[in-house]
C-alpha cells in the first residue's frame, strides 16, 4: 500500500472509530431521547461547535492553543500507523512500530499540557499540571505492558506480534496485560474515570476556555486518540486481524469497537478518581503488576 493509501486508511479508521465512540457514549449517557438521536448527535454536536463563535481569554498563547489539538490528532494518527488493519502488509510493517506507538502516546502529555497552559487561565493550567502527574504515574506501566508483548514475538513490529498470536492470544498468555493496558490507556486519553485534566471540579479544566472550532478539534482528536489506543490494544492482546472466516479488516474493526465500548462503559459508570489516589494507584499497584507481567512473560518465553 502506498503512503497515501495508508494515510487515507488511518484517517477513515480514526474518524469511524471516533463516531462509534461518540454514539456509544451518548447511548450510555442516559440523556438521549432515543437510539436514533444518539446516532445523529455526534454530527449535530460537531456542526454546532464548528458554527459557534470562538471565545478567547486575556493574552492567551494563540499559536500553542491552535497547535495543541492538531498535535493531539497527529499523535493519534502516528500511533495508528503502526497497527496493521487488514492483514500482513506486503511491504512489511514498521520494524519498531511498538516503540513509535509508545513514544507517540507519551508525547500526548505535551499536547495536553500546552493546551491547558495556552489558555492563560487558572483551572485550565491546573488541568495541565494534573495530566503531568497522571502520565508520570502510569507512563512506565503503560510502556511495560505494551513492550512485554514483544517478548514472545521477539519483534517490535506490531504485525509480527499479531502473527505470534495465531495459536493463542496474548490476552490469555499475559492475563495482566490487557487490564493494565486499558486502565493506563484510559488515563492517557484522559477518559473517565481518569479524566482528571477535564474534571468537573475544575469546571472543565483544560477545555474550560475552549470553544468553537478549537473545542471541536480537541474533542475529535481525543476521540481519535481513544481509537488508536483501542486499535493497538486489540492488535497486541486480542490477535488483531486474526479471526475465522471473515476478512482481517473486519476482525480489527470489530475488536477495536469492542474495546472502545468497554472504555465508554467504564467512563460512564465509574466515578472520577482523586488525583492523590490515582498517583498512589499508579506507583503502588500498577507498576508492580506491570513488572510481574514482564517477569511472567519472560519466564514463559525462556
Amino acid at each position, binding site marked *: 500500500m502506498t503512503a497515501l493509501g495508508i494515510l487515507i486508511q488511518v484517517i477513515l479508521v480514526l474518524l469511524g472509530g471516533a463516531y462509534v465512540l461518540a454514539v456509544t457514549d451518548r447511548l450510555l*449517557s442516559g440523556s438521549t431521547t432515543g437510539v436514533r438521536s444518539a446516532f445523529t448527535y455526534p454530527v449535530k454536536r460537531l456542526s454546532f461547535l464548528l458554527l459557534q463563535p470562538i471565545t478567547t481569554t486575556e493574552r492567551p498563547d494563540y499559536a500553542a492553543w491552535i497547535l495543541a489539538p492538531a498535535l493531539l490528532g497527529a499523535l493519534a494518527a502516528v500511533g495508528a500507523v503502526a497497527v496493521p488493519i487488514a492483514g500482513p502488509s506486503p511491504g512489511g510493517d514498521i520494524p519498531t512500530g511498538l516503540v513509535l506507538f509508545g513514544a507517540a502516546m507519551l508525547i500526548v502529555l505535551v499536547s495536553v499540557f500546552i493546551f491547558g497552559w495556552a489558555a492563560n487561565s487558572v483551572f485550565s493550567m*491546573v488541568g495541565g499540571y494534573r495530566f503531568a502527574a497522571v502520565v508520570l504515574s502510569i507512563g512506565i506501566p503503560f510502556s511495560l505492558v505494551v513492550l512485554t508483548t514483544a517478548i514472545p514475538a521477539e519483534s517490535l513490529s506490531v504485525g509480527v506480534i499479531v502473527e505470534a498470536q495465531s495459536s493463542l492470544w496474548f490476552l490469555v498468555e499475559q492475563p495482566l496485560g490487557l487490564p493494565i493496558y486499558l486502565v493506563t490507556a484510559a488515563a492517557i486519553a484522559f477518559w473517565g474515570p481518569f479524566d*482528571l485534566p477535564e474534571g*468537573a*471540579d*475544575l469546571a472543565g479544566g483544560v477545555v474550560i476556555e475552549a470553544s468553537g472550532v478549537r473545542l471541536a478539534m480537541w474533542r475529535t482528536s481525543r476521540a481519535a486518540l481513544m481509537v488508536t489506543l483501542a486499535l493497538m490494544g486489540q492488535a497486541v492482546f486480542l490477535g488483531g486481524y486474526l479471526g475465522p472466516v471473515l476478512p482481517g479488516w473486519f476482525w480489527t474493526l470489530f475488536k477495536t469497537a469492542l474495546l472502545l465500548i468497554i472504555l465508554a462503559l467504564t467512563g460512564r459508570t465509574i*466515578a*472520577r478518581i482523586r488525583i*492523590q*489516589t490515582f498517583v498512589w494507584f499508579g506507583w503502588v499497584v500498577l507498576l508492580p503488576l506491570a513488572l510481574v507481567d514482564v517477569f511472567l512473560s519472560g519466564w514463559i518465553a525462556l
Partner: protein
Amino acid sequence: FPAGLSLRAPLQGDVAQEVEVVSANPIAAGSRSIFDQALHEPMPIRNLEMARARHLLEWMADAFAIAGVDRLALRADRLAATIEPGETASVERLMASARRSLLRPMAMRTVGKLPKDVDISNLGPVARAAGVPDDRRTLEQGYREIDFQVVTRSGGDAWARFEQRADEAAQAVRLADRSGDRKAFGDGEVEAPDGLRGISGPSPADMSISMLEALLTGMEWGDLVTVVHSLDVDMETVSVGNTAV
C-alpha cells in the same frame, strides 16, 4: 460551588496553600421555603419530608456530577422531580448504583473529616454522619407518632455524609407516606435538610462557612470542592454580610 460564596485560595499545583473566605452573601434574602415557613407555623409532615427528600436527592445529583458520574446525576435529578411518598426502593436502587460506581474509594473515602474540637451538633446530616444523634424532629409529637428514629453513621467523611443523606432521603419518603395529616414545628426552630435552623442565631450555613478556612487549607483542589459540597452550604440562609461567624 455555592453561588455567593467567594474563597481566596492560592494554589501550588493542585493544592490550596491557604484558604480565606472573602465573602459569603445570601443569594436570595428572605426566601420562603417550606422549612422557613415551618419556623412560624406548623406545617404538614408529608410536605416537609417530601421537600427534604427532593433537596437531598438534588444534593446527591450534584455530588454525582462533581464525581463525573453524569449518568447517575441525571437519574438523581429525575428522581428528585418525580419521587412520591413511600417510594423508598428508587432511592435504595440509586444508592446501590452509587456503590457500584466506586464513588467511595475513588472520590470520597477519608476526604473532609471534621476536627473533633468543632461543634457540629446543629449541622444535621453532617453531624449525624459523624455519629452525633441530634435531630430536632425527635422532640416533635407528630414525628414520634410515626415512629421517627434518628439515623446516624460513624465515618464522618464525605462518603459518610453521602450515605447519610441517601439514608435520610429514603427515610423522608417513608415518613411522608406514614404521616397522614400530622403537622410539626412552628415554634421558632425547624430541622431543615442542612441542619437546625432557628428564627435567630447562626444558620447551619453560617456555621459551615466559619469552619471552611481551617478545614480546607492544604487540601487538593478536587477534595476541596468535594468537601464544600458535602457540607451543603445553603446560601439562601446565610446571614447578610457574613464573612465569618
